[in-house]
């Protein structure tokens, strides 16, 4: 009887602990969002809620100009470039791994992708400085530090993220379905295109959006190769700056307490909102019928 009472006591406390852990997470999310949102709101208020803050491209903190439109555009461009390069390679790697590779090739491929995923972003940026930037300078002219360089470095970083996730998705297509499809006279290519990829589409969408979210949030590797130009748009082969890299650049001249510190909060809030939307969208795609 006493033992039962003890067990009951342990169970009650276990439940409370787990509940407290969950509460802590919820409070953290709330606290982070709140701090950023308050800073962002105050900043917008000080600017009289002008839309130009978001749409304009005049950024000169020392002269008091804080328009972040260029960074939003550059973030979108760099992310799109990275995804455009990652998508075909990642899909190719995943299809090879799931349907073509022998079992040792598949193991080797998984291992390679995992190693690539583990390369720290500063090392990836360093590689970009040594290879991508001079390469682009030689091929395209210009400084080499560019949106395209940032996109290329990001693409390499996203390849394992997207490739491994896509590989998992394709692996999950049941053997029964392959056999049923082949038994109807599908060639291997038809089986892949008309059955396997089609049924994997929701999962591939999730993998893709997860990679997009990573691309949007990546900072150091991008900062090292993008050139950090804040005046105007210079094309794909010209330098630029994204929301993340500009927060990194200006956190020193707009420290906490500075009247315009809030503009960095605003940039963080925009990133956070974008990533939250992406995550929600990605999870919706994961529900299989």
């Amino acid at each position, binding site marked *: 009887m006493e033992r039962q009472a003890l067990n009951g006591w342990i169970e009650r406390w276990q439940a409370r602990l787990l509940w407290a852990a969950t509460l802590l997470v919820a409070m953290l999310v709330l606290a982070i969002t709140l701090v950023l949102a308050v800073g962002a709101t105050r900043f917008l208020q000080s600017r009289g809620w002008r839309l130009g803050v978001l749409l304009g491209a005049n950024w000169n903190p020392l002269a008091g100009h804080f328009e972040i439109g260029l960074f939003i555009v550059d973030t979108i461009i760099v992310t799109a470039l990275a995804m455009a390069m990652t998508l075909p390679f990642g899909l190719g790697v995943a299809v090879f791994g799931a349907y073509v590779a022998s079992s040792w090739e598949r193991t080797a491929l998984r291992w390679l992708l995992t190693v690539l995923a583990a390369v720290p972003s500063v090392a990836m940026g360093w590689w970009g400085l040594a290879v991508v930037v001079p390469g682009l300078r030689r091929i395209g002219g210009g400084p080499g530090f560019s949106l395209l360089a940032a996109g290329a470095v990001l693409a390499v970083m996203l390849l394992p993220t997207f490739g491994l996730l896509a590989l998992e998705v394709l692996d999950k297509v049941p053997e029964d379905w392959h056999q*049923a499809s082949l038994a*109807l*006279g599908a060639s291997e290519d038809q089986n892949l295109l008309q059955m396997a990829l*089609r049924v994997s589409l929701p999962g591939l969408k999730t993998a893709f959006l997860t990679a997009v979210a990573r691309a949007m949030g990546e900072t150091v590797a991008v900062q090292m190769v993008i050139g950090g130009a804040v005046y105007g748009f210079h094309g794909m082969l010209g330098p630029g700056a994204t929301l993340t890299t500009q927060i990194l650049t200006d956190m020193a001249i707009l420290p906490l307490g500075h009247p315009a510190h809030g503009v960095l909060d605003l940039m963080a809030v925009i990133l956070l909102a974008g990533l939250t939307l992406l995550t929600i969208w990605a999870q919706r795609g994961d529900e299989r019928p």
Partner: protein
Amino acid sequence: MAAITMERVSVWYGRVKALNDVSLEVEPGSVLALIGPSGCGKSTLLRVLNRLVERTPAARVAGRVLIDGHDILAPDVDLALLRRRVGMIFQRPVSFPFSIFDNVAYGPRLHGMKNPHQLRRVVEGSLKQAALWDEVRGKLRRPAHGLSGGQQQRLALARALAVNPEAILMDEPTSSLDPGSAARIEELVVHLKGQYTVLIVTHNLQQAARVSDFTGFLDRGQLIELGETSQIFTAPRDRRTEAYLTGQFE
């Protein structure tokens, strides 16, 4: 309707011999039931006929298999064409996560049918043949996964019929279904007789007796006995067949 002949067919999975020197003939338009204990090679025999056996790693096939006189084990055989002529129904009903319509239209589309009117006609015809039409008419755009197990098995049959095969392989098509659904599949098999050559693997001896013209008994990869169903069930020639039919098998 296809005439099927197997001559001294053996199959190995790695070093394991799954089928041992099997020779048999199936008359066009007849139903052959294959019975025998688990792991005796019944499913392997079916999978030789559409060469799905080659999907198993390290599988090797020896011997000759003729369908309407053509050796289907020859290296230059067009697998897509072979599998179009020889359809297959699996133990667990397989529906793709598409609509009912797209499931049935999958095969015809593979083979290049694009005209929507033609596709509609084929889908409707196949669903009628598989006795599913009355239950799904007007709901063809709904997901196939919403159907019951028995309906999904009939959908699989409709999908196989939609590419107009000459022979149909059925690998324990009713073993995962409730008795009512199983009975409907059996009715369909009887109905298909004469239009298609049917090979059906089953663990249900009564089912074999009810639907088939001929019955073959396999044990440990060997075809022990094959004859008219009435003869096999009333007067088996081999005592191993008799032992299996009377439940005295080890």
